[in-house]
């Protein structure tokens, strides 16, 4: 069976992007292979690991369980849209300071999922963070420093008033020390 390709246009990290894809193309492959946003990774086939988590219209979703065509005309934020090495987003900054990553493979998805968590619950307890991270798997850290990083990010985001809903989430007023 051959089907016509569909044009999928999105605003990814604030930039208008477009590509023709098969309807069956998964969003994660559209982001990685068509838009070159390789920061988002694939860790499983079955929607468990959350390494592929991205924001679509402000909601964190697993991009391996979504078709690119479903995301047409949406606004997408991936890890590349959080912050730059020179100007890290508070979540990235906190992951760095608290050693919330080791191999770094799950990290982009975990940070995006954690931002999703903080959007729902800006000031979570340790237990709420652990439960809120149900949708991500990290095999390296044992999660403890991820939990500390999310705690720290929550405080920092509240202090600095970073808008988690803005498309490009670069940290405002945070110092990259």
């Amino acid at each position, binding site marked *: 069976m051959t089907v016509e390709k569909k044009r999928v246009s999105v605003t990814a990290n604030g930039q208008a992007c477009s590509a023709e894809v098969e309807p069956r193309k998964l969003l994660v492959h559209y982001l990685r292979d068509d838009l070159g*946003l390789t920061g988002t990774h694939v*860790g499983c086939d*079955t929607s468990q690991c959350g390494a592929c988590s991205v924001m679509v219209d402000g909601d964190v979703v697993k991009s391996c369980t979504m078709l690119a065509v479903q995301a047409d005309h949406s606004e997408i934020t991936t890890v590349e849209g959080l912050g730059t090495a020179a100007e890290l987003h508070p979540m990235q900054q906190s992951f*760095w300071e608290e050693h919330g990553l*080791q*191999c770094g493979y799950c990290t982009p998805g975990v940070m995006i999922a954690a931002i999703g968590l903080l959007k729902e619950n800006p000031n979570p307890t340790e237990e709420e963070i652990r439960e809120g*991270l149900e949708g991500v798997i990290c095999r*390296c*850290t*044992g999660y403890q420093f991820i939990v500390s990083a999310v705690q720290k990010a929550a405080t920092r985001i509240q202090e600095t008033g970073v808008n988690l809903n803005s498309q490009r989430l670069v940290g405002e007023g945070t110092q990259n020390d």
Partner: protein
Amino acid sequence: MTKMVGSSVKRKEDARLLTGNGNFADDITLPGMLHASVVRSSSAHAKIKSIKVEEALNHPGVVAVYTGKDLEGKIGPIPTSWYVPGCNLKEPPQYPLAIDHVRYVGDGVALVIAEDRYTVKDAAELIEVEYEDLPAVVNQKEAMEEGAPLLHEDIENNIALNWKAGEIPEGIMENAEVVVKESFYVQRVFPSPLETRAAIGQYNPGSGELTLWCSSQNPHIHRMVLSEVLGISEAKFQVIAPDMGGGFGGKIGVYPDEALIGYAARDLERPVKWIEERSEHYVAANAGRDEYIDVELAGKKDGTLEAIRVKNTANLGAYLSTMGAGVSTIDFGMMVTGSYDIPYAESETFGVYTNTTPTDAYRGAGKPESTYQIERIIDLFAREIKMDPVELRRKNFIKKEAFPYQNAHGLVYDSGDYEKPLNKALEAINYEELRREQEKKRKEGKLIGIGFSTYVEMCGFGPSEVVGAVGFQGGTWENSTVRVHPSGKVTVFCGTSPHGQGHDTTFSQVVADKLGIPIEDIEFVFSDTKSVSMGWGTYGSRSTAVGGAAVSFASDRVVEKAKKIAAHELEVSENDIEFENGKFQVKGVPGKERTFQDIAHSANMAWNLPEGMEPSLEAQYFFKPENFVFPFGTHVAVVEIDKDTGEIDLQRYVSVDDVGTVINPLTAEGQVHGGIAQGVGQALWEGAVYNKNGQLVSGTLMDYTLPKARFFPHIESDFTETPSPVNPLGAKGVGEVGTTASIACAMNAVVDALSVYGITDLEMPLTPEKIWKTVQEKEGNQ
């Protein structure tokens, strides 16, 4: 300048990983790149009657299909890298694709190459393989029985090896006052790096050079082995490990798939990428553990331990993996006495072929299993003689004064002070109070358990003569080159191959202290066989103890040469120069000095060097350690069991590890946490399960439980520091201690909770159902 070694420096590698700028295998795209998919056997044991490839070949976008027959004589079998001597080891050939006989679900039968990653999956489904099923055997004990199906016709009873070490003199066991016996099963688990395996091959038909990007923990070993398999000169073959999403031992192995990708890229003269899928990973990538361990521990009623006899029956899977023979023999068997001064030990191992995916090293590789049996049996011994398990451990600890200590099997433990972490851990949990609390709650009918693991492990592989003597096909020394650029900035090369451990940072800390330069001025190159001299990779917690030591020595050599140049420029004798904080200073003459950067410039310009001195400032060091290193420590777990559901509430987990000198407390703690999560994971949740027909039942993350954040309490981790005399850093290894200690620790806690029912053992993982059934049986269905 603040000393870098010993401080919690934030990681240098994080900036790229945090911003999506990592470079993992699947991030690499090359012009004209093709995609590969391996068609795998759906049968655990069968003869291949036919493979129909036409439909796949005719599918639009398909470039090539290879079967085992197509490759016969073109690429060799994949050899093991560990020929353990004296055990009658039998290595059957493992062809990159099965030729006419498949031996496990996941055995490769065809390779499909197509223009894109979707088409290749469609085409792979079009390959039709006709199998003639043969009886399968998945359990190693059953595989050894007479009449069991044979995997390899010429290997009797499927026995790959029978290894023995040590001898207990006659009479010791027989006349012992107390002998405690138990049989344990350390179940099969999956290392499960979050990034599956991956390989990309690129061949230059003009130069004849092949490049293989490969998610490997040891690219130089991959090059060494695969150059033979593919018949290509090592000098024309570059293996690069890009950023990796973890390894945990699962990416030590040199796999058929990697050989296939190298072959196809060369054959098709186009780049070929293969990215393993998760469900494919669980049938095709090496698993860990799967060992039945029978233990007998003999001693006196006063708690003096006298002898231990251990038999390990290990499932090697269908073929001999890269380190397959060594894990359950050398790694496991030599350490069975643990941290205790037990005069006699006897170890025996049977390695058995079964219709399952091969097993290989997984975090700790043999040491977690070894620790498991001794730490479990010592608890049971304590119960038998009615002694507190801590007291029994303390009584039998190798004493601080006894180091270097030779264990019953002849291994020499480098340094130790086992009381130190034990005391610190006891204080952290307030042990006596905790026991009183436990007594009180037991009276209320609650099931509370306290578990200990006072482990020691062997790591830092290792002294070349020793690893050679035990049959390992590698040198396990390490090399480092420190290259100083004219500006004084430094590039350092090292033969270990980090994949999440943070060696860019920790090794830079070592160099920064040695050269007195800012850590930002140092960049590391690892994991590329073209830029880095022969090295042996990252596994067995060897990187800091061996690679880090090489880095330290190479830095010394740079300073040594720089000092000569400084003395020459300052017109004093070398003895009058002291080097501190990056400055070569004439003793007692303030201001008469040269900075490290000055000398870097001078050395590289070579306008005025001491007579006969070679230009430039660069030094290489090949470090061959004289011994392994032996980290140790105490872990404590506290659990409460819900009688109604059997759920285990892990209430506290305390770890005090002694990994020698700690280079970076933050990353060291991270390693411990991760190790504990994997060890506790094995004890409580993880388990690879095959059915009788050899089908993997736990083949996705829907069924195989990787621990999640909510499974753990806040881990209370701490260190003591007893430096190793084996290397200049005093460092031991930290990558595996968490796992080595924690499997037994978590189990001991649960068994302690259930000891009120007289329970001595349960099979891991401790699913709530198992616990619930045990409680039901013991309390009777009310």
